[in-house]
């Protein structure tokens, strides 16, 4: 039996070393690494479908004296998110770095991030979850700090402060878990059976983890790092930050909402998520930086996903997994297009950008379709997600469950305003050269076809999720 899960984590380490040695082929190696990741993910999914169970696990010894193993395991959510993250990383590696800016370090960081992301979705216990979490946070930090745009230093420190705070809480929760769980088990599945612990400890673990993941998702009021980080990062950085890093939090939420104690907090968390969705939707209206605008839509979408997780219903949870999948693809596409706009016009301010569609027609239409995708137009994957999430919400909260859907109106209305202002109206030809490379075209078409494929044929993923 091939240790597929171990390979998924270990192979990128090899590629990382290769980038260190073969300096000239760094970009190629990163692409190969991401393709390997995608292939292995598909192999794991195929195994899961053939074995008709999404739960695969591999256990290796690690720190035996503390009863901590190197446990890798998959479940429905992790398989879906792995698929999404490997597609996004593949496209990021292939077409994210349009200007070929410092390719070696960019590739290095991307492969490092790949290790972190894959590890988080595969981790079977909280200890290695924590390790991969930090790897997954450090790589984007450098993507902002080194490869970012003008305001990158402030943004990156803000990002790392929030994230380090989150990982401190995570560590604290892990320690609590270690001392109070029977047999010092840190296994993620043990979280579901914490009802034997004292209530105070359960509450502490839940709240500590909740705040940690809430920062990462992000949910109001701990969202402030996101707009800065996403807008100042390199295009590759924005794509993985928004597409994948925010899903770490979502994935974590799925884990902790399996805790029995979660029921008593679900209502208030749902309320917070609903507020967060509208809050961010209103904040979008005050933005003028095209990457900040897209960054804020991430908060709206992730808040809706949080809302769906907090319904604690089967359709709500399935919908949130589907929603994270769809949003990862859609937002990566939006950031890829936004990066192309920045590359072509050397500007991100919508008050200055005019008539983008005249010089960069393909990019303009891709951006438009990205907006359709995040507002949940049918036949895109987001629609399926919206249907599941809000049916779960209605069954949990009745009429109030439908309210957060209307944050999409506010968001969509402003997005159409942006499209009108900067993309279509205002015929003002600039000398900008809208040439698009083949790599970008591949990037657009892969993300686009994935969005529509899983929107038209939802049974592929639903088979995994419902199994």
């Amino acid at each position, binding site marked *: 039996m091939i240790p597929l899960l171990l390979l998924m984590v270990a192979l990128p380490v090899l590629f990382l070393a290769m980038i260190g040695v073969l300096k000239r082929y760094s970009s190629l190696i990163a692409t190969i690494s991401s393709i390997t990741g995608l292939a292995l993910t598909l192999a794991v999914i195929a195994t899961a479908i053939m074995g008709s169970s999404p739960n695969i696990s591999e256990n290796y010894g690690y720190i035996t004296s503390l009863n901590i193993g190197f446990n890798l395991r998959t479940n429905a959510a992790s398989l879906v998110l792995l698929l999404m993250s490997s597609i996004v990383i593949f496209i990021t590696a292939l077409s994210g770095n349009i200007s070929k800016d410092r390719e070696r370090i960019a590739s290095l960081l991307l492969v490092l991030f790949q290790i972190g992301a894959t590890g988080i979705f595969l981790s079977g216990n909280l200890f290695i979850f924590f390790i991969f979490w930090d790897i997954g946070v450090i790589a984007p930090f450098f993507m902002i700090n080194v490869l970012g745009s003008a305001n990158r230093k402030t943004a990156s420190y803000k990002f790392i*402060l929030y994230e380090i705070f989150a990982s401190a809480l995570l560590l604290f929760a892990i320690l609590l878990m270690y001392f109070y769980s029977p047999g010092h088990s840190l296994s993620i599945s043990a979280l579901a059976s914490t009802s034997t612990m004292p209530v105070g400890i359960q509450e502490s673990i839940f709240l500590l983890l909740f705040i940690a993941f809430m920062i990462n998702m992000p949910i109001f*009021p701990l969202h*402030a790092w996101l707009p800065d980080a996403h807008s100042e990062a390199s295009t590759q950085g924005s794509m993985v930050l928004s597409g994948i890093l925010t899903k770490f939090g979502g994935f974590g939420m799925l884990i902790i909402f399996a805790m029995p104690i979660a029921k008593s907090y679900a209502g208030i968390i749902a309320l917070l998520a609903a507020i967060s969705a509208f*809050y961010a939707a*209103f*904040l*979008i*209206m*005050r933005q003028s930086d095209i990457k900040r605008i897209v960054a804020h839509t991430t908060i709206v979408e992730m808040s809706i996903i949080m809302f769906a997780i907090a319904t604690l219903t*089967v*359709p709500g949870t399935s919908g949130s997994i589907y929603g994270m999948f769809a949003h990862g693809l859609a937002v990566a596409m939006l950031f890829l297009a936004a990066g192309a706009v920045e590359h072509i016009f050397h500007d991100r301010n919508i008050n200055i950008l005019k*008539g983008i*569609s*005249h010089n960069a027609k393909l990019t303009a239409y891709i951006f438009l379709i990205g907006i*359709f995708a995040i*507002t*949940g*137009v*049918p*036949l895109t994957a987001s629609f*399926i997600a*919206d*249907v*599941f999430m*809000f*049916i779960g919400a*209605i*069954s949990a909260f*009745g*009429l109030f469950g*439908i309210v957060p*859907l*209307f944050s*999409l*109106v*506010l968001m*969509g*209305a402003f997005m*159409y*305003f942006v*499209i*009108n202002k900067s993309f*279509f*109206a*205002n*015929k003002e030809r600039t000398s900008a050269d809208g040439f698009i490379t083949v790599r970008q075209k591949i990037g657009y078409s892969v993300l686009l076809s994935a969005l529509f494929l899983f929107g038209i044929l*939802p*049974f592929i993923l*639903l088979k995994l999720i419902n199994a």
Partner: protein
Amino acid sequence: MHPLVALLPLFFGGILSLLLGASIKTEKYAKHVALAGAIGSSLLSIYLFMQPAQSYQLTNWFSIGQYGFQLTLSLGGANSLLLFLIAVISPLIFFYSTGYMNVPSEQSRYYFELSLFTISMMLLAMSGDFLTFFIAWEGLGITSYLLIGFWYQRDAPADAARTAITTILIGDIAMLAGILLLWSSFHSLNFSAINSAALTLSGSSTYLAVAALLILVGAFTKSAQFPFHEWLSGAMEGPTPVSAFLHSSTMVKAGVFLTVLLLPLFVKLNLLWPMLLIGTITAVIGSITALTSDHIKKILAYSTIEDLGLMFVAIGLNALSAALIFFTVQALYKALLLMSSGTIMKANDDRTSIYRVSSFGRNRLLFVSALIGALSISGIFPFSGFFGKVAVDSAASSNAIVYAVLTAVDFLTALYIFRWLLVPMENQKKAHQTAYSAGYSLLKKSMQIPQLVLAILIILFSVIFFYNGVAQQANLDHSIVEMAASAFGAITAYIMFKKAKNVLSEGSRSRKILYTGNALNLAYLYIAKFFGLVAHAIEIFDNGLNRLFYMGSSGVMGLAGSVKIAEKGNINTYIAALAIGLILVFIILVFVP
């Protein structure tokens, strides 16, 4: 035959015309390909129309729990009627487009978008459940956005497209919310299942009422009902064939069509009154505003708004057959009138003001077809519009207020449409206009033939109404009242605009009083401003929050700084601190028990 087969010719036509646009040499064939696709789909749809009522289950798209989300197509009843109308009008629109759209470089994009638009509408007409309906509904919204903003290089069409998509977005989300609420009650999205489940409901349900109202908001946005109607006049910035299509058998009819499909549900929930109320208000606003516009197409846009209001009035009175008769005849005359106005604009170098275009009396074909359209819309016997108007009026006869309003609307309709027809006639006398009238002799046949066909269809439908008994049902009293109001309107128009043309011209006081568009746009502006204000307040709050976190972190840093003072390596400080500490320990040990 499977109903989806009817969409294939259009689909391939659209794709092929897009591909033909790759080279300038082949682009000129795009229109032929698209037209062939439209004719193919039209013939297949007419074949489907003649099939017995049937429903086709496509697939179980996905399931939640044990409940499946099926995609279903349905034929028969209102579905077939709408499909038939699209089948009749769509090839005419494509044919008209071949003459109208003579911009060489944009052909393939135009026909691609138009084909997708038609496919969406046909799918909408065939849909047997809410899911299929919603897919088609969103497809319509997006393709109409692309078509309205077709000339996006200019600001006006791009702005109009944005207004349209924003209004449509509100409706889409409201409708999605309504659909999901409906599903949560019935666990099915099939129209017939919903309607039959609604009949067995007992008591009132807030849940369902909210769902139905949300769906109604969706229907109102797409069918341009007050207060969501302003986008439709802006939509006139799109190419004229698109306007003709949009206003006759497609797009704006989608909302009316939905309420027709779900009528039993609305009846059961006692929610007909919003349709009656909003429909009446919209009809009045539409007919009055039509009087205040000089734009040759916008007059007709407001007229469409009025027509849709009348349809909702008929549905609100639970008069399904009246609504459907009017639904049918309106498609014919509105397509004809809009094509006429497009032709007039084409002959006048795209000038749009009725005071600036030259008289088209010289072109007999154009004049006669426009006249037939005008007579039909004002409801003059024996044109088919008459039967539609009388059917709606008869339905309203039980409600005196609505009946009075509808009669006034009949009068206003005749007034504005004859203004539309007569004012350009008068322009002939002005010297500087004569040069332009030459344009009428250069018009392409491909633009005139569809008009002729539609004019014939208008008369043909009257004959059909005599055969299938619709004409016999027309109440004589109501017919006389309707005819009198219309004739009075036409005569008033003749007196006002033939003799004293300055009435209601631009800048006149009467127009300022009558035009409601500004007030509504101002209201929208204030709503947008309000949202902007809220956004601003939230931004200030957000900045404050940021500041708080910043202060928190700098507080920690400050603390670190203070602690650092103690570690300077100054031995005196260390000794002093040690001494003070020892004394403190001593004090505590001694005095604290």
